[in-house]
């Protein structure tokens, strides 16, 4: 679920144009290596051309170095350092080139990829170095030459580097051209400078290799920008690197194949086996979160109608952005809703799919409030607890939402200002209702001539899926009801059979009947458990997705809104232009200047809105793809789990009946 591939970088309209996304689709595979690579390719054209005409790695390296030198303004020292080491690069490239050729059996590896690999591996080296020598402020020369030695000495080491190479690619996604330099930069930069990206990277990776640099990690903590974003991805990827360690040859094959760019992929697709391997890897990654959130111990606070449920929210994390590795706070239900409100307000308009929390349930809560300790309210609480947990987990799994200060605050801060606007009957709630109504009206009135078939198709898909999920949910709920009924009736029958057994005057038959009653009693428990599985593994999963599909639709709506803004601005501009023309005709120079200013202003706005729209579109697209991937994984995992539970109960059933059979045979 939380595989690195799911994490899409923040929208950068400059680097992400339609082409990128299209090629993604054409490629048919959305692994993030792809993403990163493609984005990188389109961002800086040099590698693309190089792929068409493969030249010696030497020239590429220097080419890239040129690129680098125009890169970040902060790397003045790096520039000189970089230019003084081209040979090294050449050597490294050649060396690694050969290696991966052997390892991956890729007939013509992409030199530029290899380049990244080297960078990655070198970065890794330096980081390890840096972690040791950070305080003493090791000379750059030493730092950069040591890894080189190590690399040649132990050729296998480059496997460590590959994931890092992928990471630096991700940075490219964020930063476009300049990040190329950044990826290269670390090799020569002084690791102690906290403002430097490299340090951030180092800081996050290093804790994995050695725990000595924790203090540095804290420096990153306060930062909240794209760099930290890169940090997260980086560290999320690191389990991968450790796994690669274990299995040397295969992952290197898969990762180098995955670092092939899309055009190259089309030209000569890597063997299917490799892709499968990758898939497996992704599947493995699913369960690895760096932030694990659990919601536990629902507890009633207060009495009467003012009572509310408080939940224990525990977070377990290895991310350095949090102060501790394990912390727990108490949150009430409305806090969860409040978090959602904040997030959707902030990120919704950008086209992000903000995972929705479970709905307020006045009926269920009233029951709990009244204090009825029956099974239905326990059921309700358990459902809600599970839903809240999954909701939070989805939030922290989202790379962007995790960065949100509100999320962090929610997870970490002891006291949270009470979220008032979530109350149904408050003024804010009323306002919200009105807003929703106007939204609905505008949704009906806005007619967007959809230029993009993809969105049209997806929207339809989402809507039909929503409908089907609702139907399925109702069916599963009815299955749950019937299973519960079955369980109850089985219990009744068990009792009755026991009575019949006691009435029976044949000893053996009487015994068998009471045994039957026992078996039925156990089966009753099985049915009850199964009803619970149905509810929690199946029905709730579907309910989650009904909610999420609503969120997906919401992001579509936001896109349409952005479009509407753009259109409105265009109409406005048109009007202003007409006014200008009129004024020109009427020959009123004093007002003309004002009109011209206005036109300029509106032109800027139109461009701005258009860009906004494009950005939102791109984000929505990405988010939907991410959503779909997660959905696939989530469904597969959940349903497999569900089936496993069913399997277990069947095994139990077999055991019970097997125990009964001799009893039945003993009747004489």
């Amino acid at each position: 679920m939380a595989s690195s591939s799911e994490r899409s970088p923040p929208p950068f309209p400059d680097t992400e144009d339609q082409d990128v996304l299209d090629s993604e689709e054409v490629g048919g595979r959305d692994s993030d290596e792809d993403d990163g690579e493609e984005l990188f390719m389109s961002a800086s054209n040099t590698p693309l051309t190089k792929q068409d005409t493969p030249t010696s790695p030497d020239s590429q390296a220097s080419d890239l170095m040129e690129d680098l030198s125009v890169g970040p303004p902060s790397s003045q020292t790096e520039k000189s350092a970089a230019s003084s080491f081209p040979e090294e690069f050449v050597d490294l490239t050649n060396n690694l080139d050969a290696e991966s050729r052997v390892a991956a059996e890729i007939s013509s590896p992409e030199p530029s990829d290899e380049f990244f690999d080297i960078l990655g591996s070198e970065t890794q080296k330096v980081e390890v170095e840096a972690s040791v020598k950070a305080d003493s402020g090791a000379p750059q020369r030493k730092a950069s030459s040591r890894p080189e030695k190590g690399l040649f000495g132990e050729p296998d080491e480059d496997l460590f580097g590959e994931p890092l190479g992928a990471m630096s690619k991700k940075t490219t996604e964020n930063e476009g051209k300049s990040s190329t330099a950044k990826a290269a930069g670390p090799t020569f930069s002084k690791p102690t400078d906290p403002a430097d990206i490299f340090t951030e990277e180092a800081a996050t990776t290093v804790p994995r290799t050695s725990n000595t640099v924790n203090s540095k990690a804290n420096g990153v903590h306060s930062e909240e920008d794209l760099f930290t974003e890169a940090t997260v991805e980086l560290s999320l990827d690191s389990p991968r690197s450790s796994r690669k360690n274990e299995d040397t040859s295969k992952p290197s094959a898969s990762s180098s194949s995955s670092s092939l760019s899309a055009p190259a992929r089309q030209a000569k697709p890597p063997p299917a086996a490799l892709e499968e391997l990758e898939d497996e890897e992704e599947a493995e990654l699913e369960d690895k979160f760096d932030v694990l959130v659990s919601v536990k111990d629902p507890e009633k606070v207060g009495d009467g109608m003012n009572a509310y449920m408080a939940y224990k929210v525990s977070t377990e994390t290895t991310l350095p952005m949090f102060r501790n590795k394990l912390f727990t706070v108490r949150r009430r239900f409305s806090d969860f809703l409040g978090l959602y409100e904040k997030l959707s307000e902030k990120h919704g308009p950008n086209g992000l799919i903000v995972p929705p929390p479970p709905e307020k349930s006045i009926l269920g809560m009233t029951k709990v409030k009244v204090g009825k300790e029956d099974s239905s309210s326990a059921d309700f609480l358990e459902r809600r607890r599970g839903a809240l947990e999954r909701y939070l987990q989805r939030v922290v799994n989202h790379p962007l939402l995790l960065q949100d200060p509100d999320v962090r605050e929610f997870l970490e801060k002891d006291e949270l200002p009470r979220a008032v606007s979530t109350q149904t009957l408050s003024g804010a709630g009323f306002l919200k209702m009105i807003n929703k109504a106007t939204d609905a009206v505008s949704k009906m009135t806005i007619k967007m001539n959809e230029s993009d078939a993809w969105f049209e198709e997806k929207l339809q898909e989402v809507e039909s899926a929503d409908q089907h999920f609702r139907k399925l949910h109702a069916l599963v709920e009815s299955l749950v009801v019937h299973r519960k009924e079955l369980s109850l009736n089985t219990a009744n029958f068990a009792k009755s059979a026991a009575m019949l057994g006691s009435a029976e005057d044949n000893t053996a038959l009487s015994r068998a009947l009471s045994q039957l009653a026992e078996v039925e009693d156990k089966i009753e428990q099985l049915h009850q458990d199964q009803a619970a599985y149905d509810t929690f593994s199946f029905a709730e999963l579907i309910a989650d997705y009904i909610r999420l599909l609503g969120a997906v639709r919401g992001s579509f709506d936001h896109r349409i809104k952005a479009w509407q803004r753009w259109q409105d601005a265009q109409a406005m501009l048109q009007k202003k232009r007409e006014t200008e023309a009129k004024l020109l005709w009427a020959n009123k120079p004093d007002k003309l200047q004002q009109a011209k200013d206005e036109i300029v202003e509106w032109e800027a706005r139109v461009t701005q809105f258009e860009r906004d729209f494009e950005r939102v579109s791109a984000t929505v697209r990405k988010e939907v793809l991410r959503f779909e991937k997660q959905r696939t994984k989530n469904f597969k995992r959940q349903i497999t789990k569900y089936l496993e539970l069913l399997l277990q109960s069947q095994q139990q059933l077999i055991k019970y009946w097997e125990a009964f059979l001799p009893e039945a045979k003993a009747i004489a």
Partner: protein
Amino acid sequence: MMQEGLDDGPDFLSEEDRGPRAVNVDLEMDATLQVDISDALSERDKVKFTVHTKSTLPNFKQNEFSVVRQHEEFIWLHDSFVENEDYAGYIIPPAPPRPDFDASREKLQKLGEGEGSMTKEEFTKMKQELEAEYLAIFKKTVAMHEVFLCRVAAHPVLRKDLNFHVFLEYNQDLSVRGKNKKEKLEDFFKNVVKSADGVLVAGVKDVDDFFEHEKTFLLEYHNRVKDSSAKCDRMIRSHKNAADDMNRIASSLYTLGTQDSTDLCKFFLKVSELFEKTRKIEARVAADEDLKLADLLKYYLRESQAAKDLLYRRSRSLVDYENANKALDKARAKNRDVMQAENNQQLCCHKFEKISESAKQELIDFKTRRVAAFRKNLVELAELELKHAKGNLQLLQSCLGVLKGNT
């Protein structure tokens, strides 16, 4: 690809077909008189049973013959046994229940009405299901009628009954009519009187410990078995409902699978297939429970009622005998009609003794039969449950294997 053995509609019924024959009663079949229902035909609201007899008894003209009989004729036969004073000392085999296809028919009709609102696949599926259900009820009905005949044929006394022979042999309509309203009303009153009388008579302390014990046992047993039967029915019904839900979930998943564009579609289809098959198994579990457990309980509900009736008749004749004794004492005291009273007393005594004698044997037989039937059915039930659970397990395992292989 998985579990081909489970995908067998006909087997589902053939098994049921095989099952009910002599399921509920354990009878040693006697080669001199063998009765079975070889065929049955459902015409509108009537069911015509072809009763096939194989006999070496001299009373019959031929060794093998078949007649067509209806449910009402079975009832007539049963009633003729009940009304026959000579059989007062026997447990009269309980009459088969009336064929009841109304519920099934109604469902079929509803389905026809709702045809427009569902997809073609759903409709065919539902229709097949209802047809299977109908067939199952039909077969069950046939089995119940057959069991009645078998019981009679196996009974040492009842098998010699003239009415029974006529029933078996006379190849034309017996032209028994259903009871008219007046007769029904009479029956009703008779029943009321009988149950009131039964309460009175039950209060009489029996001299015989065996019968006293049997009486208390049967009274309790009957109530318990009634309760169990009802509970069992309810359990099976909810089981069937759950199975139906699975069916619908399967078709819903199927639509999801066909509509989805992501690679989840295959997954949905697979799970849908699994649900479909699980549904079949669950439905069969329910059907088998119905057959092995519910039917058994139902049969013994009726049989225990018949045994209770026997005890009632005995107690009644005991009371009659005691009354006759009192009347005789009175007559002797008054010295009037002594002869008549004496005769009456003699008659009652004889009757009572005769009933007691045969009833004792009958009740012992009843117990043996019951234990044997329960044993047989419970063993079969456990075996079938095991079979289905294992099938289900295998299904889940292979499905999980496929799903995991895909991921």
